[in-house]
């Protein structure tokens, strides 16, 4: 272990079950197994990392051998790295209301069938439902002698419907994922909602791209917090100079009632009992009263960048930890949705998320709604489709005029650096003045 100042090991073992029902046919219903280990060894300057399948940490000299393989890799790395904090403790994983592992595959298929069937409302020509279940047993060890293990089970489903009329085709989609246990029971309503959205979109008009007043629903508001603020507050991007929020601590960048939080301790889909570097997880107020208050950090970025604590390192099984969000949301304000519409007057209500993306260095983000409604005289009127919203981080947060009082959280997966991790985002309804809305509709 010559020259190695520290090492850690993260092993993720478990199984994943996937069921795919397409137009009533069970296309796939199976379970696969994984066992991935990442061993990081910190040399004089930089990390040497070895990644392996089916590693046995308790076998004699296995860790020593892996580190002996990782150590020479640090010959080419040159970064001065300081690690803040010490690992642990681990939080208790919330108990599962119903453990999906003990439910027979046939019952899961039957329940998913029910959700998929419910999506087949008149004019729907295709339905598809997918169930995902994944149990991970995570073991974290490091050179200080820490050895922590925990289990976490995530599961959920998505249902999609395609409606067709006279050559026109539109899609509705709903999904729910959780860490709280099996969630396929009594969800037929989600299937029906996906079907009805698809049919309704057949009559929707394309949105007309221009600046206008926008009301975001709770799901899109969450994506807004995630894309516009969350990524740009990640300590690795700050450290590398790839975020417009660098050097902005204490600066007002948005509405003074705006507070944005990342909290991996919440029992939501982005929950982590311990971060991927073994650090305790905690709540971070990224934006407090419209001012940049703190960044999200791992052990490396915290001492270099400051303004925050480690605890946001996350990693896909078999991958190197990165600074990531967990459960990210905009805190409630005190305005009722109806009042928000009334103040909006004329504009557009955007609902549901088809995803988003941000260039944090440039400070530009974009996200796409599943559908929306024109707002005229404070009331929702014509349905619109294929509408997106883009903005600049440092100006758009000022455009938030009113913050609703009805926050909800939604689950999803967030990609960064080739890794996808489970997250949740949420917000109350929000009113934005003069936001840039994109759509292909014309006058």
């Amino acid at each position, binding site marked *: 272990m010559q020259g190695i100042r520290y090492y850690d090991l993260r092993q993720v073992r478990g199984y994943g079950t996937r069921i795919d029902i397409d137009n009533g046919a069970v296309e796939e219903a199976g379970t696969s197994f994984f066992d991935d280990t990442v061993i990081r060894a910190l040399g004089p300057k930089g990390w040497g990392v070895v990644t392996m399948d089916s590693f046995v940490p308790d076998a004699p000299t296995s860790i020593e051998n892996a580190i002996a393989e990782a150590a020479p890799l640090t010959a080419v790395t040159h*970064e001065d790295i300081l690690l803040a904090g010490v690992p642990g403790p681990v939080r208790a994983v919330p108990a599962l209301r119903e453990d999906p592992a003990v439910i027979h595959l046939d019952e899961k298929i039957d329940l998913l069938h029910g959700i998929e069937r419910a999506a087949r409302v008149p004019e729907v020509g295709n339905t598809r439902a997918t169930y995902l279940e994944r149990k991970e047993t995570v073991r974290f060890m490091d050179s200080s002698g820490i050895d922590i293990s925990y289990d976490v089970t995530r599961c959920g489903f998505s249902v999609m419907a395609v409606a067709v009329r006279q050559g026109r*085709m539109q899609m509705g989609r709903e999904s729910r994922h959780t860490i709280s246990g099996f969630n396929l029971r009594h969800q037929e309503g989600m299937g029906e909602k996906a079907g009805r959205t698809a049919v309704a979109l057949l009559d929707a008009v394309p949105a007309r791209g221009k600046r206008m007043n926008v009301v975001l629903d709770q799901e899109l508001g969450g994506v807004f917090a995630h894309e516009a603020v969350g990524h740009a507050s990640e300590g690795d991007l700050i450290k590398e100079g790839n975020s417009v929020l660098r050097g902005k601590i204490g600066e007002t960048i948005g509405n003074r009632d705006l507070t944005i939080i990342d909290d991996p301790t919440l029992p939501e889909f982005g929950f982590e009992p311990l971060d991927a570097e073994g650090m305790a997880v905690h709540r971070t107020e990224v934006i407090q009263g419209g001012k940049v208050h703190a960044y999200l950090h791992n052990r490396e970025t915290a001492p270099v960048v400051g303004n925050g604590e480690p605890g946001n390192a996350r990693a896909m099984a078999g991958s190197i930890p990165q600074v990531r969000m967990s459960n990210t949301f905009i805190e409630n304000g005190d305005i009722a949705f109806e009042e928000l519409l009334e103040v909006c007057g004329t504009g557009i209500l955007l609902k549901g998320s088809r995803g988003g993306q941000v260039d944090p260095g440039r400070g530009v983000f974009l996200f796409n709604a599943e559908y929306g409604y024109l707002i005229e005289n404070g009331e929702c009127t014509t349905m619109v489709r294929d509408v997106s919203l883009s903005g600049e981080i440092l100006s758009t947060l000022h455009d938030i005029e009113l913050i609703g009082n009805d926050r909800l959280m939604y689950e999803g997966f967030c990609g960064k650096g080739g890794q996808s991790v489970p997250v949740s985002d949420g917000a109350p309804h929000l009113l934005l003045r003069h936001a840039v809305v994109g759509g292909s509709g014309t006058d």
Partner: protein
Amino acid sequence: MELIEAILEEGIRRCDEVEVFGTNGTSLSLTLKGGILHSAELSRSWGVGIRTIEKGKIGFSSTSDPGRWRECLKAACESGTAATHQEWKGLPGPVEYPLRAPTHDPSLFPNLDPAQLLADALLEGAGEHPVTITGGSVDLSRGTIILANSRGVRYTAPRTLASISLEAIHGTSTGYEFDASVFMELDARAVGEQAAFLASHCDGGYDISTGDYDLVLSPIAVAQLLGHAVVPALSGRNVHAGRSRLSGELGKQCLDEGLSLYDDPFARGTGATDWDGEGVLARRIPFVNDGVLERFAYDLKTASRYGTESTASAVRSGYGGAPAIGVHNLVVDGERTGVFDDKALFVHDIVGAHTANPLTGDFSVELSNAYWIEGGIPGTPVRKAMYAGNIFEAFRSIGGLGKESRVVGSAILPPVRLNKQRIIGK
């Protein structure tokens, strides 16, 4: 191979047919953070995906643990029991095939020295412009894929891949460039220089008014739009399920007559292969010829179900993924012209392509590294604007294909000129 034989032997006792897809390999990755080499990662992987077929019911499971193969085989059989019965014409038997696909470079090894040379060249290239480097990567990998089945197929193919990327920033203007190849032939200096050029050149951009403009989309932008809307529409499964806009369009003009779209598994791209993910011999698939839709893509499962032949379009996302319909090297081709001769807004990249409507092709995305270009000379950058339209409509009437193609993911394609496109600006 001994383990795979054991799986096949045990599997055939339980089911009509068994197939094993195995991967093993080693990769070396260097990560640059802020222009400094931050970490070096050596990764070794091994895994098998087992597919079982019993009376038209198909099961699948995978594992990365050689010691758990019996459990994996059992899970595959159970998975098949739960699946819906379908028409099934059987796995392919073994055939002799010529080695045509460029899948590996005998001189490419996941070693520190060549990786470091590539990293140095990336940084050297970026030094041509006044930028700050924010990140980058070098990956070298070498491995083998194995496809074996109970009909006697025992195919193996060596695989190598080199990939590089660099990110830079100047003010609040970012630049990102990348390249990948089966061969150790990457021009890392040029990639670094281009990333830095984009960041440097696009700083201090100007606003643009909302309106219709002539665009030239880079191969990167084209690949993103095609990948999210057009490629799914070519899948036979989506066509028969009623999820493809191209359903019912066979034999009809669906794209510009100057545009052809085909899968060439023997081209020098990163998806090159002699056989697909189910052991069917790969072949060139002419999806769209001079704008006319000619073929859809099928794997064995979808072909059996709908009474047609597989087009050898099964692809695997590693050992852990069941075979699914995809493309190997999607080539966009046609007559080449000087797309940069007349003035146009060049769009190097787009933000949010994955939010395009995969059914209809409607999209509205943000431009990234967009600047005016005329006579091939880069001009004034545009600060911020959105681009909205429909990918199928946009490609019904193109303004021309550029002369140089490049590899972007599993596509090989040139820049494309599209006239009168809707831009939402100030």
